[in-house]
């Protein structure tokens, strides 16, 4: 077959697809045209606002933008789009909060090592996976030492942490700590031992029955009342405890759903071979249950990651909190769209990543044992 013939075939393929799906009847054709016009209008407006008519660091006169008055759109109203200079100006705060800027390399290092720490858990067919997994367990200690400081490094209190650092710290640590806890809770809830079972049920139902905000307030305001005088855990740690407990209750229910889907025969077969409860759980039940529970688990992770922004009500400056602080600054006030679009984009990147990963995993596990 000549190459033009092949081209014609592939050409026809697209043509047929278009006819079949977009122009099959006059109603369909009309809807297609309306939708295209709509997409064009909205799309061109957004692109124009965000990129083509936007200021980045310099305005249309070529001046470096140092306050909102220098934004093109404020000089010539109606002509120009976004003024992203606020993001540039506040970049360090968005990334590190009030972390001393000469120490920011420590945060950057922790950011840079994070992918290495999770890659071993996320993918099972990478070379040297064993060492990546080892690193996963070492990473929290490195991260703590780098971020907080200690021998050889100046101490940076968590009250200085902020922005993406706080968001990621709460999100990653919260999910990481909640995962093992939620497995224990889910197993406990199905336990035959009545005390363990009722403890787990009460814990899960209580946490799930209360809004995260309430838990954050409780952790922040009431925790010190229960603790002896002088013990005063810092704010970020309190938020972390609340977030972890909250997440573990939700994740436990997702995992319990997976556990319930495992046929009884699986456990009986394992028992008849002489496997103990923990061996059966670890080798037979959990691998299958977690696989089933991946979509709801990722759901709760995405939910939690976004919920970390609630910590701003107990005075922590996560990404959203830092954004609001930037808007409260008289130099930059009223640039709402730019700040919120930027924050949304950052959240979106992480959440979309998690969502895609979950899809990838589902597909992979499906083909693994057809």
């Amino acid at each position, binding site marked *: 077959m000549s190459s033009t013939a092949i081209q014609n075939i592939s050409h026809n393929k697209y043509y047929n697809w278009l006819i079949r799906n977009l122009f099959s009847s006059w109603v369909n054709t009309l809807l297609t045209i309306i939708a295209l016009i709509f997409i064009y209008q909205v799309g061109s407006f957004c692109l124009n606002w965000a990129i083509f008519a936007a200021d980045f660091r310099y305005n249309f006169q070529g001046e470096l933008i140092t306050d909102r008055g220098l934004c093109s759109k404020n000089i010539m109203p109606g002509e120009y789009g976004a003024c992203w200079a606020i993001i540039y100006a506040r970049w360090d705060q968005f990334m590190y909060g009030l972390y001393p800027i000469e120490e920011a390399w420590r945060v950057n290092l922790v950011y840079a090592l994070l992918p290495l720490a999770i890659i071993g858990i996320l993918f099972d067919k990478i070379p040297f996976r064993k060492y990546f997994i080892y690193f996963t367990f070492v990473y929290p200690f490195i991260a703590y030492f780098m971020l907080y400081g200690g021998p050889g490094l100046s101490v940076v209190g968590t009250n200085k942490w902020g922005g993406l650092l706080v968001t990621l710290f709460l999100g990653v640590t919260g999910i990481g700590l909640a995962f093992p806890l939620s497995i224990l809770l889910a197993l406990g809830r199905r336990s035959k031992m009545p005390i363990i079972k009722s403890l787990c049920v009460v814990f899960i139902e209580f946490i799930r029955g209360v809004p995260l905000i309430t838990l954050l307030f409780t952790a922040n305001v009431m925790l010190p009342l229960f603790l002896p005088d002088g013990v005063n855990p810092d704010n970020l740690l309190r938020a972390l405890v609340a977030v972890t407990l909250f997440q573990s209750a939700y994740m436990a229910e997702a995992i319990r759903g997976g556990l319930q889907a495992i046929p009884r025969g699986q456990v009986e*077969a394992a028992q*008849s071979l002489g*496997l103990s409860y923990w061996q059966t759980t670890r080798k*037979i039940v959990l*691998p299958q249950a977690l696989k089933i529970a991946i979509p709801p688990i990722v759901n709760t992770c995405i939910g939690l990651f976004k919920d970390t922004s609630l910590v701003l009500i107990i005075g922590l400056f996560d990404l959203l909190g830092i954004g609001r602080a930037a808007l409260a600054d008289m130099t930059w006030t009223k640039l709402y769209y730019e700040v919120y679009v930027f924050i949304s984009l950052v959240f979106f990147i992480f959440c979309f990543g998690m969502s895609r990963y979950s899809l990838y995993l589902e597909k992979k596990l499906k083909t693994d044992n*057809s």
Partner: protein
Amino acid sequence: MTEQVIQLEKVNKWYDDFHVLKDIDLFVEKGQRIVICGPSGSGKSTMIRCINRLEAHQEGKIVVHGTELTNDLKNIDLIRKNVGMVFQQFNLFPHLSVLDNIALAPIWVKKMPKKEAEEIAMSYLEKVKIPEQAEKFPGQLSGGQQQRVAIARSLAMNPDIMLFDEPTSALDPEMIKEVLDVMIQLAEEGMTMLVVTHEMGFAKTVADQMIFMDEGRIVEQAKPDEFFNNPKSDRTKLFLSQILNH
């Protein structure tokens, strides 16, 4: 005198109000092949499931290899190591390859090195005549192949006693033979076997003792010859006429 490996004395069991096992007495000698039949709900599966404590009995005494089954987990573990079981629904582990299914228990229960366990797994796969399926997952095998893997999985723990709970009931007719052949081979090697099945051809070939159960009781226990040709109870006669003439 032959060695008694299983003793059930006056065993009773209830599911809430439902009396599933009523005063069961059963003695099994080493190397004996016992086939248990009876209508559904007669308690035959429950009885053999009590022998490796997948079900707990409430009254009476069950002794396996001189170890009495109680709530003591140590005894239960000890007995399960020596008693293999094959299920109606195969119950292979779908997330593990065939080889891993078989090697799992030797590795984790017997603490055998992985390589050695896999060699043993392979040898049992050869015994059930499907070594070429070692790398596949259970979902890729036919029912008959799955059941043979399940038998190999049990055998890999080197048990003295094998329990079969309707091993061919979930199989297509043309696959029943391949599973029964493996079981006959096992019987010829002298394995002590308790088999719940309605395969009367198999029973006639292999069994040296037949048991008929109904409504939680052992109604009749006899040598196959006598059992098939001259059953004593009317209930047995009725059951046999139904099962042999359909």
